């Protein structure tokens, strides 16, 4: 009797529990890490805009964000380092009706996988690429990455990073992406809406999500996770339709957020079918 009562007492589960592998939760992401929030926004967007969940799959590369593919309770694949986009390209071409999401980090997508990214954008593959940008290589111990801001301290740049970082929205736009947006994990509602818009449209969509990395990046730059969120709150400027060339990440003067590009172009598969008379 008491046992029965106990079972009814363990009440309802989290609304996203049907999309996550709950046996693997709590996940490995550090306390205060923003990947969990970005992942949760992605799941909400999937729930909102995909009717048939059997037709959705997630592909990740290596890194902290790469773990997402292991936590989602849908078809997913955790690829080798940097090769999330090539795998997703093959998946999309084999199953053109499938909604393929690439969820990975800045190091995976833009450092080792940089070439795959620009060529998928050039071909206009029908993918949704979500890049969690935590400004460093978090999983391997906080080394300087292609997105680490100038002067930021990391384990491989102890007196400050001498390099300039990538402007990811400009890179995506220049390579040919048809949807480019940037949000932070604090702007979760906008982020969810943006991902859900990207999922329901055709063409190569790229969404950059700024997320704090309190353990490896924050610790060396005197920035706790709540400080990062306060920085996002104070310094962010929402400018939809802003020129991607003007949205360099500038944590001193203002972080420009919004949907920068939303244009229509025929996708690779459409053009392929046309050229080969498959219609």
């Amino acid at each position, binding site marked *: 009797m008491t046992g029965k009562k106990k079972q009814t007492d363990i009440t309802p589960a989290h609304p*996203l529990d049907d999309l996550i592998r709950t046996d693997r939760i709590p996940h490995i992401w550090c306390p*205060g890490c923003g990947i*969990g*929030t970005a992942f949760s926004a992605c799941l909400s967007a999937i729930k909102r805009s995909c009717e048939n969940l059997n037709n959705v799959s997630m592909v990740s590369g290596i890194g902290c964000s790469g773990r997402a593919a292991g936590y989602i309770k849908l078809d997913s694949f955790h690829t080798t380092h940097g090769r999330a986009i090539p795998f997703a390209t093959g998946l999309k071409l084999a199953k053109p009706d499938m909604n393929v999401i690439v969820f990975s980090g800045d190091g995976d997508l833009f450092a080792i996988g940089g070439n795959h990214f620009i060529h998928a954008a050039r071909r206009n593959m029908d993918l949704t690429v979500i890049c969690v940008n935590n400004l460093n290589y978090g999983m391997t111990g906080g080394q300087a990455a292609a997105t680490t801001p100038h002067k930021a301290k990391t384990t491989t740049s102890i007196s400050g990073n001498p390099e300039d970082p990538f402007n990811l929205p400009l890179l995506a736009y220049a390579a040919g992406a048809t949807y480019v947006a940037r949000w932070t*994990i604090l702007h979760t509602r906008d982020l969810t809406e943006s991902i859900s818009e990207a999922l329901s449209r055709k063409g190569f969509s790229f969404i950059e999500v700024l997320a704090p990395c309190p353990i490896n990046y924050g610790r060396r730059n005197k920035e706790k996770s709540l400080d990062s969120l306060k920085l996002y709150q104070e310094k962010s400027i929402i400018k939809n339709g802003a020129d991607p060339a003007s949205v360099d990440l500038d944590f001193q003067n203002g972080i420009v957020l919004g949907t920068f590009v939303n244009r229509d172009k025929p996708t690779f598969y459409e053009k392929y079918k046309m050229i080969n008379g498959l219609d």
Partner: protein
Amino acid sequence: MDFWRVPLDAADVFVTKGVVHILEERCKGCGYCIEYCPKSILTFSSRFNKKGYHPPMLTGATDCVNCHYCEIICPEFAIYSVEA
């Protein structure tokens, strides 16, 4: 959210009510829900969970307006609200 005066149409506005559920064993104590709750009804509890973190607890359980912000900002899937 604190108002510096009661809005003139406060009596006419329908405010939703919610109940917050906290899955304490999943919490890693990042404090995002506590910091960004618009009604400031969450605080760190003195209890420890299995992993040694202090999960949040409710200070004004009846004040929740069911905005779901704690639910969507939580990186751990550890807190959510449902309509009362």
